[in-house]
């Protein structure tokens, strides 16, 4: 069909019929690749496809491969830079006119008070035949070894320990925040294994998120004054040693 058309054209126009014949090398599948190579928007591939001499083709091929390599190098490099998640440290000095007052926690240095603790403690050690004494004036270093056991016994049996701890109310002689009086109700209690009952002033609360005090409340400068009574004479020997 093509041959007859070319022959027909060649008879009308005096050209060499062989020149118009498609190169058999570029038929069918290869012709698709060639077509693509000639029309793609890259520069290198059409250069290879359209080159007539071997030198030209080698030049285009080499330069295409070299610049593709350089391109891949930069793409991979920037991807690696992204996935290494680089960070930087920035330091800002922020001037805040309105500053919140921090939280303050206080505890008595002693976890347990001697006067309420000694009798139940002696009952406990005597009932376990660990000691045999009714001396409620002091304890020995031997008796001291059982204090932790006694506390553990109380907690494991859900027995109240509150009675043996130093509560804030009797300790708090005076409390002022920016010269306005405060009470033990402004504190939340918590237990510390080392210091017993402790209290926190001005912690952030779940129910009342806006309860945090500002340093400038009442025109003050964030001054929290506490006067506390430590009850040092009620410290249990050995427990509250330095």
């Amino acid at each position, binding site marked *: 069909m093509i041959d007859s058309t070319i022959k027909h054209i060649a008879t009308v126009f005096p050209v060499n019929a062989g020149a118009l014949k498609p190169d058999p090398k570029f038929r069918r599948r290869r012709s698709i690749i060639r077509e693509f190579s000639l029309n793609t928007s890259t520069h290198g591939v059409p250069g290879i496809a359209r080159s007539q001499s071997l030198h030209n083709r080698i030049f285009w091929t080499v330069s295409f491969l070299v610049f593709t390599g350089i391109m891949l190098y930069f793409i991979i490099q920037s991807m690696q830079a992204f996935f290494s998640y680089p960070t930087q440290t920035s330091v800002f000095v922020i001037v805040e006119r309105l500053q919140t007052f921090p939280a303050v*926690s206080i*505890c008595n240095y002693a976890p347990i008070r001697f006067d309420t603790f000694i009798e139940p403690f002696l009952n406990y050690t005597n009932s376990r035949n660990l000691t045999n004494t009714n001396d409620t004036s002091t304890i020995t270093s031997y008796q001291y070894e059982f204090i932790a056991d006694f506390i553990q016994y109380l907690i494991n049996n859900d027995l109240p320990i509150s009675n043996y701890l130093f509560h804030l109310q009797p300790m708090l002689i005076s409390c002022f925040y920016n010269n306005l009086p405060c009470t033990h109700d402004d504190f939340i209690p*918590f237990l*510390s294994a*080392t210091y017993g009952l*402790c209290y926190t002033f001005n912690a*952030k609360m779940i129910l009342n998120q806006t309860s945090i005090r500002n340093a400038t409340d009442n025109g003050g400068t964030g001054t929290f004054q506490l006067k506390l009574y*430590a009850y*040092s004479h009620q410290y249990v020997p050995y427990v509250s040693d330095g």
Partner: protein
Amino acid sequence: MLIDVSAGMVAMIHDNTELPLIAIAGIELAPGRRHKLSFKKRTYNLLSYPYSDCTTKIPLVMQAMFNRYQGADYAYSPMICNLLCIQTYV
């Protein structure tokens, strides 16, 4: 009696959302004296995943600990996380 009265109270200044680890960071105050504690606030904003392993997600065990603090809204702390791991696994 062997009683050391060089300390009468223990105090600690901390952030409003910070659980006070008072046994570690508390300051012992002597009885019969006046003590002035001043404070300075410094905030660190650390980026979370994927930039670091930092998190603000409170695990259940830490929430159980926070529940013992009478309605306080305390925030995650890696120090408490380490303490809880020590208590759980050691």
